[in-house]
């Protein structure tokens, strides 16, 4: 069914269709509607699910860790400060290898306070053992919630996953979304069967215990390996989804005009859409500009990025977060991916605290890249876009 909805609704609908049986979430702007929609589905009797009311995000994630450990497909969602409050439990979910799905509606973490999009809530969580995927449209968030369960529950992965969507730009913007029917989803996503870490009084396990030094390192290696395997799984699940639903989100990354591109900009989230327009416009003017939409941040598709960027003469990275004194977190990933290339790699930090990233801003990024491609070197590696008192390029 095609309807005009915001991403919070699209997410909630997908959660219902995934036959999630336990939800625990605490409302926080801009995620609040998600909590409300799901509560309404349950109240209306169209969703058979246990809704656990909690007093904080810390309790929300604790509750879904427990329910998922009891072998039940679970969901939670949050944003900003709420995700920060979940932080210590994120390690538990990852470490216990529980395929929980979380909808993160990105919002800056204060201070300074704000309710608008920035990735300084989710990106600092990159080392907790969670997969992280960033989406561009409300359709994509809907589709990725469905795919997320299939990716996370794959026995090669068994890790929790965050589907990150830009606060307000997606959550509070309505767009047409093809909302999946139950039979379609049932044909794609099988019932969850816990294979491990399954709390069953008849067959007890010791889980989440203190791990002496003799075990912890092998245990960490397993998570690392699962994260690497997830790269294949994300691609496979995408193809399976595309076959069944006719919508292909192209897995780890999606590219536009990269084949002969001299300059390539790597984006995450909704800025991608704006950049698509700019890159098409540049192509019309004969500029060899390309675009890569990076969908997975954990695991980071370093090999794919290296492959796609191998013939480029300048590579730009869009960052909606800062690792102070260093640069953007995304930039660091790209530098790592391109470690043996001598192509200039330039970070574009912008859109912090929900500041708009307009076509002019994206154009200015491409201008800097085209200049660097000409000279063969970057004037500066870290650029701040549309920042008063800071000159770009």
């Amino acid at each position, binding site marked *: 069914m095609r309807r005009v909805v915001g991403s919070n609704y699209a997410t909630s609908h997908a959660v219902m269709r995934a036959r999630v049986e336990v939800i625990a979430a605490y409302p926080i702007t801009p995620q609040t509607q998600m909590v409300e929609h799901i509560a309404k589905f349950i109240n209306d009797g169209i969703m058979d699910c246990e809704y656990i009311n909690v007093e904080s995000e810390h309790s929300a994630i604790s509750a879904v860790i427990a329910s998922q450990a009891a072998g039940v497909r679970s969901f939670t969602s949050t944003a900003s400060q709420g995700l920060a409050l979940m932080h210590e439990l994120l390690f538990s979910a990852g470490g216990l290898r529980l395929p929980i799905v979380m909808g993160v509606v990105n919002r800056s973490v204060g201070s300074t306070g704000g309710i608008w999009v920035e990735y300084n809530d989710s990106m600092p969580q990159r080392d907790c053992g969670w997969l992280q995927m960033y989406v561009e449209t409300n359709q994509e968030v809907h589709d990725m919630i469905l795919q997320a369960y299939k990716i996370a529950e794959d026995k090669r992965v068994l890790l929790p996953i965050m589907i990150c969507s830009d606060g307000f730009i997606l959550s509070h913007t309505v767009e047409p979304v093809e909302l999946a029917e139950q039979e379609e989803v049932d044909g794609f996503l099988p019932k969850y069967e816990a294979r491990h*870490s399954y709390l069953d009084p008849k067959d007890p396990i*010791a889980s989440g215990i203190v791990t002496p030094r003799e075990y912890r390192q092998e245990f960490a290696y397993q998570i690392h390996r699962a994260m690497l395997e997830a790269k294949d799984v994300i691609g496979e699940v995408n193809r399976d989804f595309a076959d069944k639903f006719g919508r292909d989100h192209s897995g780890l990354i999606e590219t536009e005009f990269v084949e002969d591109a001299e300059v390539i900009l790597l984006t995450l989230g909704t800025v991608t859409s704006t950049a698509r327009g700019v890159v098409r416009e540049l192509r019309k003017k004969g500029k060899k500009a390309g675009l890569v939409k990076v969908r997975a941040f954990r695991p980071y598709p370093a090999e794919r990025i290296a492959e796609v960027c191998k013939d480029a003469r300048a590579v730009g990275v869009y960052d909606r977060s800062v690792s102070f004194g260093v640069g953007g977190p995304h930039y660091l990933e790209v530098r790592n991916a391109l470690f043996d290339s001598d192509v200039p790699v330039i970070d574009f930090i912008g859109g912090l605290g929900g500041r708009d990233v307009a076509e002019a801003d994206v154009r200015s990024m491409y201008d800097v890249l085209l200049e660097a491609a000409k000279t063969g070197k970057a004037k500066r590696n870290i650029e701040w876009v549309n920042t008063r008192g800071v000159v770009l390029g």
Partner: protein
Amino acid sequence: MKEIILHGRGGQGAVLAAQALASAAVFEDKYAMAFPHFGAERRGAPVAAFARIAEGRILTKAHIYKPDYVIVLDPWLAGLVDVAKGMEGHEGTSGGVPMGSVKTDICQGLNKKGAAVLNTARPPDEVRLSLEVCVGTVDATTIALETLGHPATNSCMLGAFAKTTEEVSIGSIEKGIMDVFGERLGEGIAERNVKAAKLGFERTEVGMCSGGREFPAQKKWLPDVDELPPGCAIRSQDTEYGKLGPGSTVQNETGSWRTFHPIVDDEKCTYCMLCWFHCPDGCIGRVPDKESVSVDYFYCKGCGICSEVCPVDAITMVREVEG
């Protein structure tokens, strides 16, 4: 550089002793370091502490694998965990080895020119270890009970160490104890510990032990990355390494932790079950036909709470003797 491992039980003060030993060495213008096992410690459970002494700065921050000296604060410990092997042995369990029987090798890894300093009432020539090495022996538990009133043998064993190894003088040990124990426990207690150290020094007998004792190899579950279950979720199972997962703590013979054990006088016992209620390890059982209680000595750790709470003084705490 000399490396020393101290083996004790939670509460015997192995860590404090290691620090006092380091302090003693520094009073002699040497360089020294002391560190604990970095583990969760419980009163009575096997613990280890480490010290290094050298003429100049010590660079290594790694564990000690080949000690020059081992100091064993507890008379039973050598029989229950692999004290000389140190680190790994500490995390093992006794696997039901009867208390006091020496089954593991405290000499493993021990530098042959080194020495073992043992808390035992036996003279050196009655001690048998896997290697023929220099040993210093002293009945430190008796000295600790005499001077301190409880079996914290750490200070006494430092005196024994000074006598056996001559690495530091007893005078420096006294200063080290005043420095470290004084800071932590107050001057009065530090002074009593200095007295225990002096008595330890005086009463230590140094000699050679006999060697050739055999020890069974201990197997430890060390799964590789493919064998370890995801999420470390371990099902209850019996393996060649003992039990794993839920229920595996039944193997923990906490009874080996005792210095004293409770003896119940059936005549005095009124069957009020107050001791049953208070025992932290659930070691008290009912004996209905005698209208009295029994103690499970496999797990009873000798804390003495039952004896404290018994309203009719039917429980006496009796000192363990070396088997």
